[in-house]
């Protein structure tokens, strides 16, 4: 299913449509009154200045930036034209969208939903079929080279892609077409980033991640099944606000959210260090909140922000609910043995490895914007864990 993005012109009832022709984000001399900014959108939605500033502050926090960046974010949102986003869906379960519309701050959701839209809230999509196709095409043509393509799900290649048909054509064709003129691509979730569950053996449809099909564009991977809502809004807000990619690690993940293992910031970590483990579900140790390592927790090898940002508006995360992490944001978790086997070969405990050449991976960065590197690299980006494996005790 395609969800043609946001276009501004659809939600302007009375001639408020001001943006005509492709938006050129790089032209600072362009009359600002000609281009709608994020702030304009917020004002139009009746959002107060106070709420707007609060949103900027929360965004800075989510991005791991110091309070001094708040005015910069505010300034960017007041002056920058908003970047068009096209959101397409391949083989998927829609969990990324479901996660996305549940961001903590209602404002973030409103703003982002008004900037880009999901399939069920798009007035253009209200007319199905050919009109939807036309809307997608119009967006591509209008913003050629300037839009961000957000991909949820992934393309199956078997049988010429016939396992996922959008508007009579294989999704992979739509993906290639939409990617051709995109400025950058966001791979939402484990499906688009790594293939996820449908690529598990025997991968019946030969589902592949986006980067196997699109090789000539910068791709930001935001893995997780699904990714945390605040991580999604954080990444997209960062890109829309600063008009550049966030710093990425070697796998293409934003280091600000994927720079640390869940284990590193897990509130049960002291019990791991003290050798206090849950031995069986709901045993005495479970009640005491001991470490779930022996129950198969993959927190020690999983890079994600669950233990810091948490889920459902900061309520909890899987380990807090007494179930180990399954490592859903890592590549290939579906075929590494049972989810309830314990991780072995943990060679990296103790001191964090310092940032490696991760920054080099950001070579695909779309230039310009406000330099945030210093602040971001304060977050340690640890080494990836290719040498880790899972015990084959049952094999």
């Amino acid at each position, binding site marked *: 299913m395609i969800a043609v993005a946001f276009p501004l012109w659809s939600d302007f009832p009375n001639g408020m449509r001001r943006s005509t022709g492709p938006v050129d984000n790089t032209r600072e001399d362009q009359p600002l009154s000609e281009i709608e900014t994020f702030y304009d959108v917020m004002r139009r939605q009746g959002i107060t200045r106070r709420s707007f500033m609060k949103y900027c502050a929360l965004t800075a926090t989510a991005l791991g930036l110091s309070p001094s960046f708040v005015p910069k974010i505010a300034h960017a949102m007041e002056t920058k034209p908003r970047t068009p986003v096209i959101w397409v*869906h391949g083989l998927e379960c829609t969990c990324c969208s479901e996660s996305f519309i549940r961001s903590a701050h209602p404002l973030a*959701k409103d703003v982002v939903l008004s900037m880009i839209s999901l399939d069920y809230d*798009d007035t253009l999509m209200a007319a199905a079929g050919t009109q939807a196709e036309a809307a997608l095409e119009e967006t591509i043509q209008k913003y050629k080279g300037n839009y961000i393509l957000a991909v949820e799900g992934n393309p199956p290649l078997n049988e010429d892609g016939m396992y996922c048909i959008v508007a009579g054509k294989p999704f992979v064709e739509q993906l290639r077409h939409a990617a051709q003129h995109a400025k950058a691509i966001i791979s939402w979730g484990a499906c688009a980033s790594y293939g996820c569950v449908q690529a598990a053996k025997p991968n019946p449809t030969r589902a592949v991640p986006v980067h196997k099909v699109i090789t000539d564009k910068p791709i930001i991977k935001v893995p997780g099944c*699904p990714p945390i809502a605040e991580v999604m809004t954080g990444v997209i807000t960062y890109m829309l606000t600063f008009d550049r990619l966030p710093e990425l690690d070697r796998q293409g993940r934003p280091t600000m959210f994927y720079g640390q293992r869940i284990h590193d910031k897990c509130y049960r970590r002291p019990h791991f260090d003290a050798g206090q483990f849950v031995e069986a*579900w*709901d045993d005495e140790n479970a009640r005491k909140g001991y470490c779930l390592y022996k129950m198969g927790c993959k927190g020690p090898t999983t890079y994600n922000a669950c233990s810091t940002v948490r889920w459902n508006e900061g309520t909890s995360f899987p380990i807090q609910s007494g179930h180990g992490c*399954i490592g859903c944001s890592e590549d290939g978790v579906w075929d590494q043995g049972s989810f309830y086997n314990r991780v072995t070969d943990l060679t990296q405990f103790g001191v964090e490895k310092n940032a490696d050449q991760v920054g080099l991976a950001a070579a695909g960065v779309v230039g310009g914007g406000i330099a945030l590197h210093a602040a971001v690299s304060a977050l340690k980006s640890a080494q990836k864990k290719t040498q880790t494996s899972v015990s084959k005790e049952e094999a």
Partner: protein
Amino acid sequence: MSTRLLVGPFNRVEGDLEISLDIDAGQVVAARVNSPLYRGFERMLLGKRPEDALTITPRICGICSISQSAAAAMALAAAAGTIPTPDGARTAALLHAVENVSDHLTHFNLFFMPDFTRPLYADRPWYETAVDRFSAGQGSAARRAVEARAALLHIVGLLGGKWPHTLAIQPAGVTRAPSLRDKVRMGATLQVFRRYLEDTLFGAPLENFAALSDAQALMGWTTGDAGLFLRIAADLDLADLGPGPGRYMSFGAYPGPDGSAFARGIRMADGPVAPLDPATIAEDLSHAWMLGDTAHPETGQTRPDEAMADPGYTWCKAPRLGGQTMETGAFARQVVDGHPLALDLAGQGGSVLARVAGRLLELARTQVVMETLLAAIRPEERFMGSHDTPSKGQGAGMLEAARGALGHWLRIEDGRIAQYQIIAPTTWNFSPRDALGVPGPVEAALQGAPVRAGEDTPVSVQHIVRSFDPCMVCTVH
């Protein structure tokens, strides 16, 4: 002379959907539903460790992942002879109810109602109110509903760690033993949600809505967004649009030590409720791009036909109970449970009105179910019993997802999954024709739908299709 119209992709449904309509003299004479998305979950489960089904099957669907995980846990428990602890079962039921309620709320506010804001209704007296409340992405009701839903899902966050794709439900109970403090917190969350329902959706105490006893009383309900819907339904005669097969099926919702909240069984129109015999379930593959014979899910296979040969026209199999199509969903659940309002609506043939009203009725009734479940949870008790997955065995997990009857059929051999078949609610409702040429429930409901001159996405078709609340990612999986 009839013309053929292809409607799709549908927006505001979960997943992909395409419907081919034969139109003659201003109405639909035949409909064929195509589910164009196939992933092959049943194949990738083969050879895996049985417990891994708990993690893999929820990924079938991002909107009803708890239903899938609960069905997998139930199938594993059945294969092992495990019985969850009473408080584990109550907690699992609460998790599940929260998800189902969230889905109903999403459906009404974000998927179904926005169709009434289409310009072609601009001359109707309720139009401006509908636009104000429900226009996609802008409506005040939609925003309020998304907020209320996010707040309600804190309960899943607390008990399950995360949503979607919660991991907490296991064959012998749940991984999280809520403390007394958690219980108080969840009670407060439920109170906030009740206030939302009573202030916004119903505009009156929800017990009053749950006490409606017939269609006439229903149509007299004027308050809240429910009242707006009923005003629209009366004006557009939604009571006559999209009748179902008149055969309703429910696997029974929220089983636990205190019994099921909503009964299991089948019912023909407003006849007496009859027991459900799972042995008579079979999936017909004659019009699906699937190879193999009609089979019960204990033995059925999922082998996609790469040639996509005729007469197949979808990846969706055609499940039948005793050879017949069955309607499943919130309305069917309330009919089987014997609620007088649902029975009266069923007696009038079921319809778009009946399905949407059934969902509203269930929202009101499930709020009470959730409050009762929470009150019964005893933090000092065990939430997980013992469970050993056998190296050989088989079991079925049959329960009610938001959209209706969901079944998982599992067989274990040598400690590995040797057979796994899933029939999702939308597989029943959106099934293709069977070997006898009998169309599936939605295909049949679409026959007779009016098509206005020049309409290329007939609005009546949109109303009918959406009244079933399709979840296409579940349908084929």
